[in-house]
C-alpha cells in the first residue's frame, strides 16, 4: 500500500488511520472531509450544545497532527464519484485523485422521515458541528423548539436546547423514550427527569408537517395538535452513507457489507464505521467503530489476522443528567428478569438472565457496575454461583477488587478506545501517576468522562505514587463524591449529619466528612436544618479561632474596615480587662485580640458589643475597602459604602471555604480587590466585578466576571457568583480553584448570563439563607449548651485527698 485515500474525516476513519500509522508510518495518505473541521468527537456535540464544552474542547486530531504525519488533508471537499477500475476518486471540486487503496469512512446521515415542509428555514438535523453551532446561534430564552424523535440523539438535543433557555417539546412516535435502549420502566425514570427539567414529552405521536411560510413556525401532529416552533430538530434516526460504495459497485445492503476482516467485495477498497454492515448489523455507537478500526488497520497493512466478531450493543451515557447504561437483549421473553428500583433515588436496574447467563442489562441512575455486566455479557460467564449477588456484589474491603476483576483487554475508555492493559502500560513504562498525566499520555477519559472513576481506581491500584488530582470522594466514611452527596441530601430530604452518616455512611464519620456534611446541609436547606455542633470544628463550636496554646483569638466585625472612636475605646478596655496577650491589626483591616480563654469568650463579646467577624470559620470574612470618592482625589466610585453594603449582605453566611472580598474606588487597586475571592473595581461610570483571585497559598489574579454600571448591579453580580460558589464548589475548595476547575466562561454562563429563572433561583436561595442566619456571638448570652464555653467542675474533689 503506497497511496491511501480516505474518504471521511470522522472518528472511525481517523481511528483507523492512527492504527495504520503505527504499522506503516511511511504511507502517503490523503484525507477528504466534507465538513470544514478537523476530526472531532461527534459524541460530545451534545456537550457543546449544552454549553459545557467549546468547539476546541472536542477536537480529536488538530491540524498539527495531520501535518506531523504528512497527511494531505482536503476539507470541505465531498467525494462524489469513484472509478474502481482506473482507481480514482472525483471530488465536487472536480479534482481527480488516484489511489492504490481506498478507505470509505463516510459515516451516516440523519434520516428525515416523510414530513411536509422539512425544507423550511429553522429545520435542523443534529449531526455535525455546523448544525450545533447554528442551533446554538438560534437558541435562547423564549425560543420554542420541537425535537422530533425521543431516542438518544433527540434527548441530547432537547437537553442542550433546554440549557440554552429554549422551551422544548419532544415528539416521539413510540410509547416510550429511547425504546431501543430502555424498557418501559427504565424509560419512565427518564421521562420523569425530563419533565422535572421542564421539557415536555409527547409520546405515541407522529409529526406530519412543519408549518410556516419560508421559516418554520410550528409543527402539526397526527392527532391534530399544532405546536408553535421556531426551531425544529429532526433526530429520527440515521442511515449509512453508501452512495459512493454503490458507485464503486461494492456489495451494499443497508450498509457496505464487510466480512470479519473488514474486507469489502473489492480487494482495494475498504470501509469502516457507521457506513458498514457487519454480520447484518450497522452500528451507530462509538465502541464498535474503534474495534473495527483496529482490525481493519491490521488487514490493510498486510497483518491480516485479527477478526472482528461484532460488538455487544451497549451504550453508556448521561442523558439529561441521568446515567444510563443499556446492553444486550433486555427483553423479558424467554429470560428471567432480575430487578431493583428506588424511585426516590431515581435508580432502576434490570438484568435479564437466560440459562444461567446474562443476556441483557438496563441501568438508570447508577451505572457504576456496568463494566461487570459488560464482561459477563462478553464472556457468557455462568452466573449460577453468584446468583445472589447479581445486582449487589458482596461488599469487598479491597478497593482494587473491581479493577482486578477486569481483563487486561477490557476497554476502560470507550470514547478513545483505551484498554486496561494500555493504562497499566502507561503507568509502568511512562511513569504516569495522576489522572491528568493519564489523560495526557493515553487520552483515556478525555471523551465523555464516564470512565474517570475507573481510571482513578486503576491508578490507585497500580501506580506506586498515585496522587488524586482533586478530592472526589469526601472520605471513606461516606463514599460518595460531593455532587452525588448533595443530590442524595436534597432528594432524601436529610437534615442532620448523623442521619446522613447512619443511612449512607459508616454511622460515625470523621473530622473530614462531618464538617463537609455540616456545610452541605446548611447550604442546601438555607440554614433550616438540624445543626449538629459535634460535627463541626472547635472554631465553629465556640465562634473563635483556636491558637497554638489552646486559647482563642477574637476578631469583631468592622465592616469595610471602618470603625469609630467609641468602638476603639471598647476594644482597648476589653484588651486590658481580659489581659489579652496581643492586640493586632490584621491583613483584613480589622483588629484581632489574641490569647482569650474559652470561658472568657462570652464576656469579651458582651463587653465589645460588636458582632462576630467570623474570622474563624469557612464563611464570609470581610470586605476590605479603600476610601474611594469620599476622600480620595483619584476615586471614581464610593468603594467604602459599596464595601460596607456588600459585607452586610453576605456576612454571617457559611461557604465551602473562606471568602474574602474587597472593593476599590479606582484601578489603582489600593485594597487589592483583584486578588480577592470577589472584588469590585471601580472605574469611571461603573464597576468591574472580578472573582477567583488569591494572595495566600496561591497567588492568582481574579477573572473578570462582568462589567456593570451601578453599585446595585455590581452587588447583584457578586451575589450570583457567591451563591453559585456556595452551591457548586467542593468543601474546602477556594474560589480560585473552583473558578479554574469550572472555567470562567461557564461560571459566567451559569451566573450573570444565566436565564432570569436561574438567576432568580440563586438570589432567592441566598436570600433565604441570609434570612435565617444570625450573629454567632449571640450565643454568648444564650449558649447552645450549658457547658459550651465552660469546664466541668469536680463535685467532690476532696475525696482525692483522703
Amino acid at each position, binding site marked *: 500500500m503506497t497511496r491511501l485515500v480516505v474518504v471521511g474525516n470522522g472518528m472511525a476513519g481517523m481511528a483507523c488511520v492512527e492504527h495504520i500509522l503505527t504499522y506503516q508510518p511511511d504511507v502517503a495518505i490523503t484525507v477528504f472531509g466534507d465538513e470544514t473541521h478537523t476530526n472531532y468527537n461527534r459524541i460530545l456535540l451534545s456537550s457543546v450544545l449544552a454549553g459545557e464544552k467549546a468547539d476546541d474542547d472536542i477536537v480529536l486530531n488538530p491540524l498539527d497532527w495531520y501535518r506531523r504525519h504528512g497527511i494531505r488533508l482536503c476539507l470541505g471537499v465531498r467525494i462524489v464519484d469513484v472509478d474502481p477500475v482506473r482507481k480514482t476518486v472525483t471530488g465536487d471540486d472536480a479534482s481527480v485523485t488516484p489511489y492504490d487503496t481506498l478507505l470509505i469512512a463516510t459515516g451516516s446521515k440523519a434520516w428525515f422521515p416523510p414530513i411536509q415542509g422539512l425544507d423550511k428555514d429553522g429545520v435542523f438535523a443534529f449531526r455535525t458541528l455546523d448544525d450545533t453551532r447554528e442551533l446554538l446561534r438560534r437558541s435562547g430564552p423564549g425560543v420554542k423548539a420541537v425535537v422530533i424523535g425521543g431516542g438518544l440523539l433527540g434527548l441530547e438535543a432537547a437537553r442542550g436546547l433546554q440549557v440554552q433557555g429554549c422551551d422544548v417539546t419532544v415528539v416521539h412516535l413510540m410509547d416510550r423514550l429511547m425504546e431501543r435502549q430502555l424498557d418501559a420502566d427504565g424509560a419512565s425514570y427518564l421521562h420523569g427527569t425530563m419533565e422535572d427539567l421542564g421539557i415536555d414529552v409527547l409520546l405515541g405521536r407522529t409529526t406530519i408537517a412543519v408549518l410556516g411560510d419560508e421559516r418554520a413556525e410550528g409543527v402539526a401532529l397526527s392527532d391534530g395538535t399544532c405546536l408553535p416552533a421556531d426551531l425544529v430538530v429532526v433526530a429520527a434516526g440515521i442511515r449509512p452513507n453508501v452512495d459512493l460504495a454503490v458507485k464503486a459497485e461494492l456489495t451494499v445492503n443497508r450498509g457496505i457489507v464487510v466480512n470479519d476482516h473488514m474486507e469489502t467485495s473489492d480487494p482495494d477498497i475498504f470501509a469502516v464505521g457507521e457506513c458498514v454492515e457487519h454480520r447484518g448489523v450497522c452500528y451507530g455507537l462509538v465502541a464498535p467503530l474503534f474495534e473495527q478500526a483496529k482490525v481493519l488497520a491490521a488487514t490493510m497493512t498486510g497483518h491480516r489476522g485479527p477478526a472482528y466478531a461484532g460488538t455487544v450493543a451497549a451504550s453508556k451515557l448521561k442523558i439529561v443528567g441521568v446515567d444510563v447504561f443499556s446492553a444486550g437483549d433486555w427483553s423479558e421473553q424467554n429470560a428471567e428478569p432480575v430487578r431493583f428500583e428506588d424511585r426516590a433515588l431515581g435508580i432502576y436496574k434490570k438484568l435479564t438472565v437466560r440459562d444461567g447467563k446474562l443476556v441483557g442489562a438496563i441501568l438508570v441512575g447508577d451505572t457504576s457496575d456496568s463494566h461487570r455486566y459488560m464482561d459477563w455479557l462478553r464472556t457468557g460467564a455462568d452466573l449460577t454461583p453468584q446468583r445472589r449477588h447479581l445486582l449487589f456484589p458482596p461488599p469487598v474491603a479491597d478497593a482494587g477488587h473491581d479493577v482486578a476483576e477486569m481483563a487486561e483487554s477490557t476497554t476502560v475508555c470507550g470514547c478513545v478506545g483505551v484498554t486496561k492493559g494500555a493504562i497499566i502500560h502507561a503507568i509502568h513504562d511512562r511513569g504516569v501517576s495522576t489522572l491528568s498525566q493519564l489523560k495526557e499520555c493515553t487520552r483515556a477519559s478525555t471523551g465523555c468522562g464516564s470512565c474517570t472513576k475507573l481510571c482513578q481506581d486503576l491508578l490507585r491500584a497500580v501506580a506506586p505514587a498515585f496522587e488524586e488530582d482533586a478530592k472526589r470522594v469526601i472520605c471513606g466514611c461516606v463514599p460518595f463524591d460531593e455532587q452525588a452527596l448533595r443530590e442524595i441530601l436534597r432528594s432524601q430530604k436529610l437534615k442532620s449529619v448523623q442521619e446522613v452518616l447512619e443511612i449512607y455512611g459508616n454511622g460515625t464519620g470523621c473530622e473530614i466528612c462531618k*464538617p463537609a456534611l455540616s456545610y452541605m446541609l446548611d447550604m442546601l436547606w438555607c440554614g433550616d436544618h438540624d445543626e449538629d455542633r459535634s460535627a463541626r470544628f472547635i472554631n465553629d463550636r465556640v465562634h473563635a479561632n*483556636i491558637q*497554638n496554646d489552646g486559647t482563642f483569638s477574637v476578631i469583631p466585625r468592622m465592616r469595610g474596615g471602618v470603625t469609630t472612636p467609641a468602638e476603639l475605646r471598647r476594644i482597648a478596655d476589653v484588651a486590658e480587662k481580659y489581659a489579652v496577650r496581643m492586640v493586632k491589626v490584621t491583613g483584613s483591616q480589622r483588629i484581632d485580640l489574641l490569647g482569650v480563654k474559652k470561658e472568657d469568650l462570652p464576656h469579651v463579646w458582651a463587653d465589645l458589643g460588636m458582632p462576630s467577624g467570623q474570622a474563624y470559620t469557612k464563611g464570609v470574612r470581610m470586605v476590605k475597602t479603600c476610601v474611594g470618592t469620599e476622600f480620595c482625589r483619584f476615586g471614581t466610585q464610593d468603594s467604602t459604602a459599596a464595601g460596607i453594603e456588600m459585607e452586610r449582605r453576605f456576612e454571617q453566611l457559611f461557604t465551602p471555604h473562606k471568602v474574602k472580598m474587597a472593593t476599590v474606588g479606582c484601578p489603582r487597586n489600593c485594597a487589592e480587590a483583584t486578588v480577592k475571592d470577589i472584588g469590585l473595581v471601580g472605574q469611571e461610570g461603573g464597576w468591574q466585578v472580578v472573582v477567583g483571585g488569591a494572595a495566600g497559598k496561591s497567588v492568582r489574579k481574579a477573572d473578570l466576571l462582568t462589567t456593570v454600571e451601578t453599585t446595585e448591579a455590581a452587588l447583584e453580580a457578586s451575589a450570583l457568583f457567591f451563591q453559585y460558589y456556595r452551591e457548586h464548589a467542593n468543601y474546602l475548595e477556594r474560589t480560585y480553584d473552583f473558578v479554574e476547575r469550572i472555567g470562567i466562561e461557564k461560571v459566567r454562563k451559569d451566573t450573570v448570563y444565566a436565564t432570569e429563572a436561574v438567576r432568580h433561583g440563586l438570589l432567592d436561595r441566598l436570600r433565604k439563607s441570609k434570612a435565617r442566619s444570625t450573629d454567632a456571638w449571640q450565643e454568648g448570652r444564650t449558649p447552645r449548651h450549658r457547658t459550651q464555653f465552660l469546664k466541668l*467542675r469536680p463535685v467532690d*474533689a476532696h*475525696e482525692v485527698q483522703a
Partner: protein
Amino acid sequence: MTTGHWIKIGHPEDVPPREGRVVDVVGHEIAVFNLGGRFVALANRCPHRGGPLADGILTATAVVCPLHGWKVDLRQGCVERPAGEAACVETYPVRVDDDTIAVCLPARRTAAGGEAA
C-alpha cells in the same frame, strides 16, 4: 479491679453527644467524651504539641486534635496518626452511677514506683 479514687465530675447531660469537655482534678487536666451514652476520659494534652483533645472532632474510635490533626485512640490513648508514632496519653476509667459521671484517678505512686496500699 481498678484501684484509685473515683471523682464525680458532673452529669451525663453536661457533655453533649459526640463532644468533649474538660475537667481539672488536682493536677490532672482530663478530657471527657460522650460517645452516645458511653463516656471515656483521656489526658487533655495531645502528645504532639499539647493541643486540647477535648476540643477535637470524634471518629468511631478516636479523637482528632484540633491543632494539627493528630489522631488519638479513645480506648488505649495511643496515637493512631501519624502512623508509627509510639506516644500515648493517659486514659482514665469512667463510670456513670445515679446520673453522675465519675472518673478514676490512679492511686498515688510511692517513691519506689509501686502502687500505694
